[in-house]
């Protein structure tokens, strides 16, 4: 695994306009960064990333099965009791999942270590499934990268195929896509997934999360008053559970993507449960609930993560009981878990995170994020990768 500088495509910004990639820069800073790429060997990809990704996913499903049947754990996950049946039913019904992204610390050798599972609202799907693919194609076509340069990336193809399966499993329904207003990134991600669903032959609509309505019977509706019967939401389950319409969840006939049981996987509380169920698994880091810290005697340094944190918010690194680094954010009132510190590898000044994608239960590609801080956040740069 190397970080290799490369000349940017001279027309990359025109290409971004042409293919509708609007959030390559945010807050006036570059988010998409093609001034370098990461190079992997096939063995690194297949043995160190692909196989563990699918294995961890299966382990996570085993955790869901355990948590679903354990009231005490559901409380530890801070899942409101009013939603337990909704979540349980979605699991018992086998409500199908679309995708997830597992984040790893990996430096090219040894075991990739699981940081977290973005199982509910993963983003950067467009950059991964299409945009970095196009970057490689353009560079190969221009003779800058060799013809046999490859990429671990079948995300788009697998998403379209998965949508075809989902249509068979969800017949006679149109699919509403939704995300919050005021985020170009979320809107772009949802548009991409909507395009994938359309390519699979699904009838789609869009409604902003804030615009979702309800009728007298408790059905959800879009801005044209269409009843919503199948919905993709890029909005965390744990928020929806607590909001005004939350009490209607499970009372109306809607199929959800991701399904409600994913709220267990996207919760950081999954990390201590995984460690308990699969102790010393090579891809896991020791992890503990707050009241189990006496078991963490081997760890001189711990990372404190809020149960619901996203995009690296409110994470702190604790050494010998004092905080040495932290990131700001709005989470934490729901409680924390502690994970043994395993710093991201550094390539020059950059701290690098590998995101490994799953479509249903199959590994589907990777995305690379870089940050100048050891805690990657939502403004971490996205870099392409190749296999050579």
């Amino acid at each position, binding site marked *: 695994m190397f970080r290799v500088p490369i000349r940017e495509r001279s027309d990359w910004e025109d290409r971004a306009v042409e293919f509708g990639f609007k959030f390559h820069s945010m807050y006036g800073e570059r988010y998409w960064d093609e001034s370098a790429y990461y190079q992997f060997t096939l063995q690194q990809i297949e043995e160190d990333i692909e196989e563990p990704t699918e294995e961890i996913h299966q382990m996570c499903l085993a955790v869901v099965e355990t948590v679903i049947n354990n009231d005490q754990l559901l409380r530890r996950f801070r899942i409101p009791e009013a939603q337990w049946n909704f979540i349980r039913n979605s699991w018992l019904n086998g409500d199908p999942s679309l995708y997830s992204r597992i984040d790893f610390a990996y430096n090219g050798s040894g075991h990739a270590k699981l940081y977290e599972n*973005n199982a509910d609202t993963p983003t950067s799907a467009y950059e991964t499934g299409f945009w970095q693919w196009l970057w490689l194609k353009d560079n190969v076509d221009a003779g800058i990268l060799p013809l046999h340069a490859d990429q671990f990336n079948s995300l788009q193809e697998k998403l379209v195929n998965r949508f075809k399966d989902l249509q068979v499993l969800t017949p006679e329904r149109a699919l509403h896509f939704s*995300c919050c207003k005021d985020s170009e990134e979320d809107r772009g991600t949802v548009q991409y997934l909507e395009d994938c669903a*359309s390519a699979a032959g699904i009838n789609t609509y869009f409604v902003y999360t*804030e615009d979702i309505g309800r009728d007298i019977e408790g059905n959800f509706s879009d801005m044209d008053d269409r009843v919503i019967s199948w919905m993709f939401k890029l909005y965390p389950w744990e928020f929806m559970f607590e909001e*005004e319409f939350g009490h209607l969840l499970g009372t109306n006939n809607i199929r959800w993507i991701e399904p409600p049981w994913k709220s267990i996987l996207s919760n950081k509380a999954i990390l201590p449960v995984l460690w308990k169920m699969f102790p010393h698994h090579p891809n896991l880091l020791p992890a503990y609930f707050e009241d189990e810290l006496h078991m963490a005697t081997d760890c001189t340094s711990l990372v404190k993560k809020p149960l619901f944190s996203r995009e690296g918010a409110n994470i702190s690194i604790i050494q010998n009981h004092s905080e040495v680094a932290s990131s700001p954010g709005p989470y934490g009132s729901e409680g924390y878990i502690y994970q043994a510190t395993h710093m991201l590898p550094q390539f020059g000044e950059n701290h690098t995170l590998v995101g490994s994608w799953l479509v249903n239960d199959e590994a589907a590609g990777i995305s690379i994020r870089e940050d100048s801080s050891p805690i990657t956040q939502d403004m971490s740069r996205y870099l392409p990768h190749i296999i050579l």
Partner: protein
Amino acid sequence: MKRTQHIDLDLMRKVANGKSSLLRPLALGLTVVTFSSCSNNTKEEAIVAGSPAECVAKTSMIYAECEAAYKQAEKEAERTGPKYQNKYECESEFGNGHCSQSQISGYFMPMMTGFLVGNMLSSDHSRKNSMYNPVYRYKHPYSEKEDEIMTADGTTIGSPGQRSYYVQKSALQPKPTVSKTIPRGRFKAGSLNAKPAGATQTVSRGGFGSTASSKSSWGFGRFGGWGG
């Protein structure tokens, strides 16, 4: 190979690339001509021909032209017409015996009632670039559109049997490609200004999204979004 071998870039393109954007000034020019020659009246007279023979009878076109127009409309019907997963769904909107399975897409589609001919009294020369769109007779029982003639996107143009129709210019222009199927009873959703079928009465909105806006005050999620 660990990556997808081929992605159709034409399907991914959101904006015409350098080459095809050359067409844009030409299209703009045509718009100007349209407005100046029609002033406020954007409607145009057109006839519905059920066959090449009827086309010959109602227009100044010769048989070969009418036959070509008919074939073009059939082609447009395949491209832009409503598509259904099964025959029942199609027939519930277009009547028994009025749907067939496309040999190309495999979907069930209504058979066209006829095709639209605009400028029917004009000379050959100005008809060179004419479009001949298919029209359908809508048969969904108790629908306010029942027995109306519609274009492929669900816009009604009037009841059947009229000598001629005054249609929006758009009725004579190419319709968007339809590549996905329509859920049962939804075709009329495409008609202008109509509420979708099965629309409900929304009593309140805004029951989701409040956590996002409260956490946004931290500066999070505003641009970065709520994904992870």
